[in-house]
């Protein structure tokens, strides 16, 4: 076959590159706007013009206390939790080669949920230990899923496989879900507290929660950024990736560990917020039309989504609060359906 030297033409290139510039800019704008509104809106309205003096230390009185000690830490926790969940989703979808993967699939969600349910049901007086318990539960469950999906392997060195990981996660989810069911039945009077935690909320989150999630976010997000290109090459298949110089199993462990830390720490401060980890990476891909810079952009988009979801959760039915997971599902779900319908992607 003679290769025709076709003129360099890429009809979609201009629109695509515009999208690649506009999407991150739009997400950043939405995030900043959400942050400003989160600080301004609530039971006491604080004019946006007063926010800057307060943030730079020139504020005074009750407005300053409300912003610096309640709204700002709460908003930052929501930002980090959203970033964590979205990036965990990016890593897991890559490493399991499964577009349906999210932090739930590696048992993190169910592990955190079971630990929290035990605390809320059986030891309600130890509620202050809830974040720690949820985090430990998430880690234990993730380690268990990884251990189950590991095989010694007859030829070559042992390792996991994407399919085994997903199936082990499904099994662990089923077991933990059943245990949660039993606990809820046995402690029926604690159901409201358990349900509220399970649906996720940032109610009452403060600086202590922020400092608690920050190190895991920093570690997990950095790790994700560093191994992203390797995880991407894993999508070519283990054999191809390995001959291209990728340490396949080590990359998988790192991605798995980073995702577990990110999602576990998010669950420990926010409860179980579904949907973000699954859908934000897809929304970013659909909007960008590419996988480029998906880790940082997903982090911003996940943060922005939870920021706005929390803002809606605490203002729409004020003074009562909606669970934030309900809002992400109600608002993000239809938007995702719209994107899917419009793009025809994943046919």
């Amino acid at each position, binding site marked *: *076959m003679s*290769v*025709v*030297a*076709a*003129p*360099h*033409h*890429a009809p*979609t*290139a201009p629109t695509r590159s515009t999208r690649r510039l506009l999407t991150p800019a739009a997400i950043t704008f939405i995030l900043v706007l959400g942050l400003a509104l989160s600080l301004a809106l609530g039971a006491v309205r604080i004019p946006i013009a007063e926010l800057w003096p307060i943030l730079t230390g020139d504020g005074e009185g009750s407005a300053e206390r409300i912003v610096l000690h309640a709204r700002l830490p709460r908003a930052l926790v929501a930002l980090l939790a959203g970033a964590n969940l979205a990036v965990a989703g990016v890593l897991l979808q890559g490493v399991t*080669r499964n*577009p349906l993967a999210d932090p739930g699939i590696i048992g993190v969600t169910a592990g955190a949920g079971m630990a929290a349910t035990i605390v809320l049901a059986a030891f309600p007086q130890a509620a202050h230990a809830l974040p720690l318990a949820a985090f430990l539960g998430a880690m234990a469950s993730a380690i268990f899923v990884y251990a189950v999906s590991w095989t010694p392997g*007859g*030829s*070559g*060195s042992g390792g996991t496989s994407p399919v085994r990981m997903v199936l082990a996660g499904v099994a662990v989810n089923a077991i933990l879900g059943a245990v949660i069911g039993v606990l809820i039945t046995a402690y029926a009077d604690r159901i409201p507290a358990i349900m509220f935690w399970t649906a996720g909320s940032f109610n009452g989150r403060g600086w202590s929660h922020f400092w608690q999630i920050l190190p895991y976010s920093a570690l997990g997000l950095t790790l994700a*950024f*560093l191994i*992203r*290109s*390797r995880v*991407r*090459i894993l*999508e*070519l*298949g283990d*054999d*191809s990736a*390995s*001959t*291209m*110089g*990728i*340490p396949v199993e080590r990359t998988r462990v790192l991605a798995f560990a980073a995702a577990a830390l990110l999602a576990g720490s998010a669950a420990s401060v926010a409860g179980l917020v579904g949907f973000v980890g699954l859908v934000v990476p897809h929304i970013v*891909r659909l909007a960008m*039309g*590419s*996988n*480029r810079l998906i880790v940082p952009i997903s982090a911003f988009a996940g943060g922005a989504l939870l920021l706005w979801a929390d803002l809606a959760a605490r203002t729409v039915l004020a003074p009562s609060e909606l669970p934030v997971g309900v809002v992400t599902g109600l608002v993000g779900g239809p938007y995702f359906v719209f994107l899917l319908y419009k793009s025809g*992607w994943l046919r």
Partner: protein
Amino acid sequence: MTLAAHELTVNLGTTRVLNGVSIAIAPGEMVAIIGPNGSGKSTLLRAMAGLIKPATGDTTLDGKSLREYSKRALAHRRALLTQAADLPQLTTVREHVAMGRHAHTSPLATLIRGANQADHNTALDAAMDRCGVAHLAHRRMEALSGGERQRVRLATTLAQRPDILLLDEPLTGLDIEHQLSLLGLLGDLNAAQGTTIACVIHDLGLALRHFPRVVAVHQGRIAADGPGERVLDAETLENVFGVEGAACFDLPGHPVVVCRSQPARGPRAPSSSPAAAL
């Protein structure tokens, strides 16, 4: 640059797939690996690529065991075009080919776009040019035909700049034009750059025509090894493939292998002993 297997024995589960195979591929050679399904061709190729830990025996490159090379160093020396074509989502041709540059990219390159960028681009363009996919650079992999995709995958392995190229049934699913063009490309690579090529292939006529050396694998052993016209004789065709046939040289420069099944015996049971076959 000699890639050699020494007395390789490989078990997959409880099945012995390779049984004491020794083979040496010298620099600049072009080798076709043939054999029936399940004979161990692909396993041999994967073991030569260093992807399988053999039960006994070893694979060496330049006399040094593959295990003594780092993954990165090995990726500079040999590349493998696998049979399974997993497609990463939303990837352009250029991004796909760029994945082959991983071993040439410093770990910090994700943070610092620096001096290597020009070299990186040159290597990508060269690989895409050679495989005739440069004009597709900004297209998505999903949008390409099977033949175009296979050329892009080949370009990705060439972006590794390997001395040795291993290919596992690269012609599967391609029409005859694309088969010939891909084989022509391999011949060019071999002639122009001296790239060593070992290719698992099912079409015996193409193996005979395009590869100076043909290795026949049967039941985990090497049944015949040498120039195609000697290996693809009636005896090998019967013993290895269980068919009646012969190589036919009527068209100068275009030898073909003509085969028919053996109606008296029918397809051979896979359990026939190696002794009977040899």
